[in-house]
């Protein structure tokens, strides 16, 4: 069963991310791989040209670099906590396996 093979799961996720980049033509578009959120804004502007956003963000990342830094920070925080959990549990499971007499709950 493929769902039990973690290596296959990872390979499939990587393939799903890489395949779109290899599809001919997609990268040559005017705005290749633009964000869907921004495209939705385009649909609104097109059908309701008079609409003005009535509220502005208090703060916006001043550049694309700062924005990508903050996204990286968000991913790093999440990955850090997740890896801490899995590493902690893995070590604990290993320790219990080796010395069952020390198991305590």
């Amino acid at each position, binding site marked *: 069963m493929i*769902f039990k093979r973690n290596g296959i799961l990872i390979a499939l*996720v990587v393939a*799903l991310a890489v395949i779109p980049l290899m599809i001919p033509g997609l990268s040559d578009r005017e705005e290749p791989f633009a964000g869907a959120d921004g495209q939705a804004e385009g*649909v609104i502007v097109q*059908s309701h040209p008079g609409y003005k956003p009535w509220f502005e963000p208090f703060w916006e990342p001043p550049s694309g670099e700062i924005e990508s830094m903050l996204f990286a920070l968000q991913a790093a925080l999440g990955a850090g*906590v*997740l890896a801490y959990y899995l590493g902690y549990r*893995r070590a604990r499971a290993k320790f219990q396996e080796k010395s069952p007499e020390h198991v305590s709950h």
Partner: protein
Amino acid sequence: MHIMEGYLPPAHAAAWTAVSLPFVVVSARKVVKIFREKPKAKLLLAACGAFVFVLSALKLPSVTGSCSHPTGTGLGAILFGAAVMPLLGAIVLLFQALLLAHGGLTTLGANVFSMAVAGPWVAYALFRLLRGTGRSLGFSTFLAATLGDLTTYVVTALQLAVAFPDPVSGFQGAAIKFLSVFAVTQIPLAVSEGLLTVLVVNLVLKYSRDELEETAILAGGVQ
């Protein structure tokens, strides 16, 4: 799925905030209850929140030639039930609204509803249904997380179609346009989310089976 700041008319923004707020309040109570009654599950719950942090930061390319991101909310819904997700999702969306200008405060209610209420509930209900009808844990997890992710984007598209019906073709025409932006792009990403959720569930099962059994949090048991 982030509706941008100011992009929902005030009445819509207020209505979605009113709809989502009770879910977040109930969710906060549920999380406090888990912390008090099942202290051993604290770390796993934090890991579920962390999964949402990682996945919603990953903008992935899709076959439509645009980019979007998974949500990561299926994992927590499957392990703890959908009721814990509104709080976790609201924290992530608030982080992104304040620091990244992604989404916004006026659209927070609508975004919480799509990402942290609708998606997790579909994932949870589907997971229970599939497990109840004897499907394997891996398959149930995959389908639940995938369709939960997709639900979030369908809901976002419908929220926008209600707020911005097409002048000619009305709600239906607008729904088709927004769905083609959000839902079609999302299909391969939703599959990625399903696969990654199975991966984490596999690892959790491998290393903390006792924890899942003790706390009985995995809906329908671990078998």
